[in-house]
């Protein structure tokens, strides 16, 4: 599961395509992460978790 922030969505899609998986699903969260407080990280984690569930189970 690859997590990235919104501004890097296009980068992630590009590299996925080059590596042969153009539809690879990423976990997308709000930017930035580096300067986040713990509550902000937890909120982003919840968003990522909800996106991850159907991907892992390929629902």
């Amino acid at each position, binding site marked *: 599961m690859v997590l990235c922030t919104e501004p890097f969505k296009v980068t992630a899609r590009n590299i996925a395509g080059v590596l042969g998986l153009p539809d690879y699903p990423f976990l997308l969260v709000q930017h930035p992460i580096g300067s986040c407080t713990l509550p902000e*990280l937890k909120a982003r984690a919840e968003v990522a978790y909800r996106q991850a569930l159907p991907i892992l*189970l390929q629902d």
Partner: protein
Amino acid sequence: MQLYAPTSTTPKRKAFRAPALASLQGTRIGILENGKLNAEEMLGEVAQLFVQRHGCTVRTLASKSNASAPAPGNILVKVAQEVDFLLTGLGD
């Protein structure tokens, strides 16, 4: 006029996704953090939600010494053998 294309002629790659998990219950999670600020913390928080809600375990935490270089092959091989899915990050 004939112009050469300035692009690479390396053949396009093909890859495939790992098969779906039948269930998340008790699965083993790996974390590969890229050394960026809060990367380990962010991925750790995501992993903890799986631990709390599905009884998953965090089996391994690996680190890339260089955020912008691919993870060394030996790290990926080792981690792949020990976990059911891996959490990692891309970009900042």
